[in-house]
């Protein structure tokens, strides 16, 4: 678009997609909110320099500063140990957003790949779907316990405790949540590959790889989008459950899911303890959902043309 002034080149596909995306009000709003959230968790701590895990060592002061309502010193109040909630929301959000996004991408990549392969190649269908059945059947908790036991120390020693835990959690969530996406994608691929346009492509000798990428992928993308938005929420919540079970980050390491979990106990006394993390998770999921909607519309040439 930079050289639009000189000659009018044919608009590229991506420019088209972007202009369509921009006309989608919900998607733009979602993008705006998500950027705000990202800025809040990544730039926020540079401005609000309070240690989220700081507990006042002076016992008397600590007791005084517990469970404070929002004030200027603590815009979101403090928790049961007098830790600043704003700082905790920021540092918690960084982990939650990162875990949510990476785990979601991982599970979508595995899920779509397995689904596409199983749906498209009849030979692979049986083995891959039985594998999916097996993963669906595995009890999640013992699986995670075993994963943690086998890999935690190895990863922590090679990558450091924090990066190691992050990788392990992301892997654990990704590995245990791709099956729904795989089944959905496969179901759709089974139907789409019998459609006329795929048969046409096949009959003129288009290689399978291109058929999958050009003809089948775009048609399953909307379901993948839905799975992805739901996946982010799922990953954030699963992380909180993992931490709660002692399988996640160290106990003083806040995440949104964990803040929400801890807050439930104090729900009646200090509603703000659940409202803020709950709101943050919901806003993330809602904005990702609208962005997903917009992207899907923008990527669909039939809609784009309208």
């Amino acid at each position, binding site marked *: 678009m930079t050289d639009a002034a000189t000659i009018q080149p044919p608009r590229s596909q991506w420019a088209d997609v972007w202009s369509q995306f921009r006309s989608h009000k919900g998607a733009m709003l979602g993008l705006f909110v998500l950027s705000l959230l990202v800025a809040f968790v990544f730039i926020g701590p540079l401005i609000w320099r309070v240690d989220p895990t700081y507990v006042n060592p002076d016992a008397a002061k600590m007791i005084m500063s517990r469970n404070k309502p929002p004030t200027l010193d603590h815009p979101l109040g403090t928790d049961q140990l007098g830790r600043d909630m704003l700082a905790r929301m920021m540092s918690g959000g960084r982990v939650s957003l990162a875990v949510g996004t990476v785990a979601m991408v991982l599970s979508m990549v595995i899920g779509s790949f397995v689904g596409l392969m199983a749906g498209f190649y009849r030979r692979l269908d049986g083995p891959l779907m039985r594998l999916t059945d097996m993963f669906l059947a595995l009890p999640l908790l013992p699986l995670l316990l075993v994963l943690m036991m086998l890999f935690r120390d190895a990863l922590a020693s090679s990558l450091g405790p924090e990066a190691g835990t992050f990788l392990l959690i992301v892997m654990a969530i990704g590995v245990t949540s791709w099956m729904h996406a795989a*089944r959905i994608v496969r*179901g759709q691929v089974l139907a789409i590959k019998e459609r006329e346009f795929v048969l046409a492509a096949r009959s003129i000798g288009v290689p399978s790889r291109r058929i999958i990428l050009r003809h089948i992928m775009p048609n399953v993308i909307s379901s993948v989008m839905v799975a992805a938005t739901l996946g982010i929420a799922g990953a954030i919540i699963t992380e909180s459950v993992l931490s709660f079970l002692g399988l996640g980050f160290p106990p003083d390491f806040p995440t949104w899911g964990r803040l929400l979990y801890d807050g439930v106990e104090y729900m009646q006394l200090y509603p703000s303890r659940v409202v803020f993390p709950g709101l943050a998770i919901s806003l993330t999921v809602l904005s990702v959902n609208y962005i997903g909607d917009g992207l899907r519309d923008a990527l*669909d040439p039939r809609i784009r043309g309208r």
Partner: protein
Amino acid sequence: MLTYTIRRLLLAIPTLLLISLVIFLLVDLAPGSPMSEIPLTVPPEVRLKMIQAMGADQPVFVRYLLWLKQFFIVEPSYIIDGWFGTNLGGDQQRILSWQSRAPVFDVIGQRLPQTLTVVGTAYLVGILIALPIGIYSAYRQYSWFDQLGTFFAMVGYSVPTFFTGVLFIVIFSVNLHWFPSIYDTTLKVTDWASFWKQVHQMALPVMVLALFNAAEISRYTRSSMLENLGQDYARTARAKGMSERTVVLKHVLRNSMIPVVTIIALGMPAVFGGAIITEQVFKVNGIGAALIGAIHANDLPMVQTLTFIFAVLIVLFNLIADILYGILDPRIRYD
């Protein structure tokens, strides 16, 4: 289709055996021991004796083979004995839970009713809410109804049940006193009064679960409907002068059902499996609560049997989904 089904059913046997072995090894490998809930005041020698009495110190493969025998030979013969009054089981050892020393199948039998009523109803309610919402929001994309539906669905999905459950209890039980917070599993429905009581105690857990289920299903319905509403065949059908109703509810809906069927089929085993958190919050004490309790107590026979039954259900429902694909879209063929 029939040969395909038969072949799949036959193939399911080795698959399930393999799954059962993997589950067994996994549960066995997981850290923890059945002694975790025994008070620390019990000395180690006594703990060792207790483990020996459970047979938990036997090698893995010995226990696995014993479990296979108990699951596939002893338990079915007990069931047959129960039906026909025969004595095939004799005094053969059934699968005993380490935690309660009761036959695992008796425990499952005790727990299935409440799980089926609560989780099953919730699932049904969820589907019944989700389908119309999904269809209508796709048909009127970006209308206020669609926006509202999207909003509630996403909030419903992003707020976990451990939160909504407690929230509903605080609002409806503590403050309004409308519904009980504890599910009474001994209640028997015999007349209108007890039926009303049952509806009352089911209300909260069903609400929580249905909200969660409806959110997921409605999203998939909506997106799949949207995809198909723009297809050529929908335009053709309209051009032929068919009524909107027929176009949407017959042609488009039918073609949009594949992801929806997949998701519903994936959720069905969970109806038997129960809902771990919701069951715990409302003290429904169904299969979900039994599973999580058994996992925490490292009750291997219980965990193994329950997860294996889920595995059977998962394989079964995924097969049903595959057959339904063929019915919904006759072009899909597996042979």
